[in-house]
């Protein structure tokens, strides 16, 4: 970074408000930011903290009810807040571009990719159509899209999510902007695809010298992509600094709280559990007096923190541009607090509860194309699950990991009886349940296999009270029938999920996402099940809330000695809480074993790539970089041989393309499905290297 250069963007004391029926709501207050040429700034925070509002304000696109109430946004010497619509139009798309969270929604469904790309240079520069077309195709090649000519002639729905996002990025870069705004650009994508995009974005900023503002809720991603980072809480920046300084010496209790909420390789569900931040993010009109964070802060001092609102100040003895909004930061020693006061004992593993034996699930898909009609192959099979084998014991947490389309949710459906298996068996307590539909299952069977769903917002009936919905489950499961006993049981369940008892009378819309998920957990545990499937239970929740819900789930499991099947795409969380891991890819189990076995060599090449793709929010942990090419193939047309052969970085030859590998047993209950001999796989070095405590910076 060249300090002498003029900054690209300067936001000074920016305040943004939304006007609603309830009055003016300040969404962002007192926001200052300077972006130098070629620099990448990260803005991190939980939902509702105002990070996207900042991006929209820079674009000057805030809808009818939003407005800037104070401060300025200066872009290359011009104050954007004073420009006319026509002057803004000349800057948008040519000098400042934006990349959005949902690529599919951001592309016009009824226009060809070529049209949507070409109109950018055509609108901003005086060039011919042919030139615009050539440049668009070249840009598609630059963002590493295979076969740009074919993509140019496609419509958005014909592309995969990763390709769509690359198109949006290409669109943003076409007129070589000086500033790129990225609003959660990879949140909607799979991890291995995300890794490819992040890698490419970094390349681009090096190649074109584009400054970037990268907005994300994911600290690990920010660490991998940015030079400086701003942490936002409830509409204001609470801490800013360089990546190194802020990640190594976080000063604000909220920043530190965020780090304690995410599952890093150094956390462990028994020895070093996550420490959720208590309470909730205050709504904009409920912000407390003084520091906005004090009601949730462990270092709150009465009479000091709750008096006056204060400005950011420079950290003493810190890096020159490390600033924090906290009066007590000098008194707090975050590293000292990490002493394990909450160490828990490891759970005894019980008897085998679940045995999945060569379970298969094929879906029939009707093909109505002309070709299919002629050849007579109108029914095709989509192999959602191909010969799954694994077991789970009492009190054990088994994680099923894989990217979208790998068949993990299909397996959950068969286990729950929502779909019938095509072959093989799922033996639950020694009885095959893979073909018993949920309506044919006994109350006992339904009660003992329960599920916590991914989206807590849609799983509760909006027109019934919480109490009513849980009571119904209790009666359905035949746990209690007497009115008073049912009521008491609901109260007990609310206590278990740590919700106030008067939630009994509330309707779902009065609850936050985290609270709804707690109700979802209470519902699943109402009949004291022996097996609970949790399908991405925290992926829709904010970091601090997710940590609390994860811990809650662990606590209840501990108490009830439940077997937990945890379905997730996030290897960090899985590493934190699982005893055993099943890695799935395109319907196959490519590797299964205990958590330590899966996380250390020998790896299946896909496991290796997954490990490398997951961002880790710890600057001292080093990873070997493995970026996979392309996307997960469609389950309609899987490769003939090994399912992973199209993207494998360790492909050894034709055998991979043509033959399905057999499972190799590495140890008891640890298996890898690969053509590469075990000897070779064992030579691979670990992907993640965690420094010893003595090597760490803060220890020196």
């Amino acid at each position, binding site marked *: 970074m060249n300090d002498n250069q003029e900054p690209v963007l300067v936001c000074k004391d920016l305040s943004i408000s939304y006007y609603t029926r309830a009055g003016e709501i300040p969404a962002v207050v007192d926001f200052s930011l300077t972006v130098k040429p070629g620099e990448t700034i990260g803005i991190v925070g939980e939902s509702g903290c105002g990070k996207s509002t900042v991006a929209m304000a820079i674009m000057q696109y805030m809808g009818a009810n939003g407005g800037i109430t104070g401060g300025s946004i200066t872009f290359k010497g011009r104050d954007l807040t004073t420009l006319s619509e026509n002057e803004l139009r000349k800057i948008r*798309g040519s000098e400042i571009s934006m990349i959005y969270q949902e690529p599919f929604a951001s*592309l*016009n469904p*009824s*226009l060809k990719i070529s049209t949507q790309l070409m*109109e950018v240079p055509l609108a901003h520069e005086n060039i011919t159509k042919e030139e615009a077309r050539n440049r668009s195709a070249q840009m598609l090649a630059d963002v590493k899209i295979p076969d740009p000519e074919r993509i140019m002639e496609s419509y958005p729905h014909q592309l995969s999510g990763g390709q769509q996002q690359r198109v*949006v990025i290409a669109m943003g870069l076409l007129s070589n902007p000086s500033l790129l705004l990225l609003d959660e650009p990879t949140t909607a994508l799979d991890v291995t695809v995300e890794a490819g995009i992040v890698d490419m974005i970094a390349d681009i900023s090096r190649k074109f010298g584009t400054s970037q503002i990268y907005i994300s809720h994911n600290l690990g991603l920010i660490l991998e992509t940015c030079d400086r980072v701003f942490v936002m809480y409830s509409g204001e920046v609470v801490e800013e600094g360089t990546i190194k300084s802020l990640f190594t010496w976080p000063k604000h209790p909220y920043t530190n709280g965020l780090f304690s909420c995410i599952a890093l390789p150094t956390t462990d569900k028994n020895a070093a559990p996550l420490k959720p931040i208590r309470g909730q993010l205050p709504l904009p009109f409920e912000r407390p007096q003084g520091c906005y964070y004090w009601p949730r802060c462990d270092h709150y001092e009465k009479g000091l923190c709750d008096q006056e609102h204060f400005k950011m100040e420079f950290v003493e003895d810190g890096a020159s541009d490390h600033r924090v909004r906290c009066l007590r930061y000098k008194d707090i020693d975050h590293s000292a607090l990490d002493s394990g006061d909450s160490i828990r004992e490891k759970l005894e593993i019980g008897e085998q509860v679940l045995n999945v034996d060569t379970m298969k699930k094929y879906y029939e898909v009707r093909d109505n194309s002309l070709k299919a009609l002629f050849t007579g192959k109108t029914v095709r099979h989509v192999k959602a699950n191909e010969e799954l084998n694994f077991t789970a014991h009492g009190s054990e947490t088994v994680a099923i990991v894989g990217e979208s389309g790998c068949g993990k949710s299909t397996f959950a459906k068969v286990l729950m009886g929502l779909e019938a298996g095509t072959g093989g068996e799922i033996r639950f307590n020694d009885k095959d349940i893979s073909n018993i539909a949920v309506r044919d299952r006994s109350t006992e069977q339904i009660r003992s296999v329960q599920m916590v769903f991914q989206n807590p917002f849609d799983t509760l009936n909006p027109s019934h009270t919480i109490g009513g919905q849980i009571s119904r489950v209790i009666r359905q499961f035949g746990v209690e029938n007497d009115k008073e006993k049912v009521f008491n049981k609901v109260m007990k369940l609310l206590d278990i999920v740590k919700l106030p008892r008067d939630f009994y009378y509330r309707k779902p819309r009065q609850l936050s996402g985290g609270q709804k998920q707690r109700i979802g957990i209470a519902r699943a545990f109402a009949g004291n099940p022996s097996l609970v499937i949790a399908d991405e239970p925290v992926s829709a929740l904010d970091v601090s809330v997710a940590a609390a819900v994860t811990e809650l789930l662990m606590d209840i499991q501990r108490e009830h000695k439940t077997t937990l099947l945890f379905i997730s795409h996030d290897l960090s969380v899985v590493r934190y809480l699982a005893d055993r891991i099943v890695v799935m890819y395109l319907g196959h189990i490519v590797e299964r074993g205990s958590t330590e076995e899966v996380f250390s060599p020998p790896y299946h090449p896909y496991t290796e790539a997954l490990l490398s793709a997951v961002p880790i929010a710890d600057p001292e942990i080093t990873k070997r970089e493995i970026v996979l090419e392309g996307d997960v193939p469609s389950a309609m047309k899987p490769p003939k041989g090994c399912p992973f052969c199209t993207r494998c970085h360790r492909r050894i030859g034709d055998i991979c393309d043509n033959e399905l590998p057999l499972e190799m047993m590495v140890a008891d209950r640890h298996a890898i499905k690969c053509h590469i001999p075990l000897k070779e796989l064992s030579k691979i070095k670990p992907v993640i290297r965690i420094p010893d405590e003595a090597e760490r910076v803060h220890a020196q």
Partner: protein
Amino acid sequence: MVLLLLKRISFMIFTMIVVSIILFLLLETGLTGDPATRVLGNFASAEQKEMWRDQHGYNQPLVVRYGKWLGNFATGNLGESIRFKTEVKNVLYPRLWNTVILGFWTFAIMIPLSLILGVLSGMKEGSLLDRSISVFGILTTSVPEFASAVFFSALFVFGLKWLPGTSSMSGGFEVRQLILPVMVLVVYDFGYVARMTRASMAEVMTSQYVRTAVLKGLPYKQVILKHALRNALIAPFTVIMLQINWLLSGVIVVEFFFAYKGFGALLLEASLNNDIALLEACAMVAVVAAVASQTIADIGYTFLNPRIRFS
């Protein structure tokens, strides 16, 4: 694409055949009363009826009769109208042409008017223009045709004496006679299509791809014409195609009020007078128009929406 076209067209033919069977069973068999009684009247003797049946082939097996009946339709031999004492086609074709004229002018005014106003109000949701169009649209749509027909007649025929009160075109075609029926129909239908367009446009304007287009720095005109309009017109297009059926056979009230010699009025006359041959011909024409317009709508829909074209 070819397959889709073939599928739609064969489905269209299938629908028409099914409807023709229903029509045949209802009118040509004893299901809803003896056809001979219907034609000859209640006072005909049993012998007369038997003779009539014999003459007109009603004693042949049902399948053979249906085949012949359908064949006659396909070759344009529509039979003879009892009421008008002439061949059905001599009555039907001029009436159909009149309705086409009425429908064409109604569409020619109503579609541009409602689409433009709908798009304009959808572009700026909640603006003064939007609210006035919405209120006006509800108002005109909720007033039934017979009420607005009376109102406009009172105003333009009896009050201002600008326009003729009947549109029978007895002295040859006259444009002035067309104005009132077209006006009533436009006023009635405009609100519906305009509000549909408005809702669709408003939704598109809040979509993320319109935001993308704006933030690409495209001129506002291009954002609207190129990005928003095409997607916003998908829903109104379907509705407009449905209006064709309505104009063909659903505007009986207006045709009757202005004594306009249209198709809807003919259909009513045929059914009131037990004119079976005419009724059958009218019903078949209505069905063909309905099915054909929907097929065209389906095919046009795939052009507006590439997600259907390429799946």
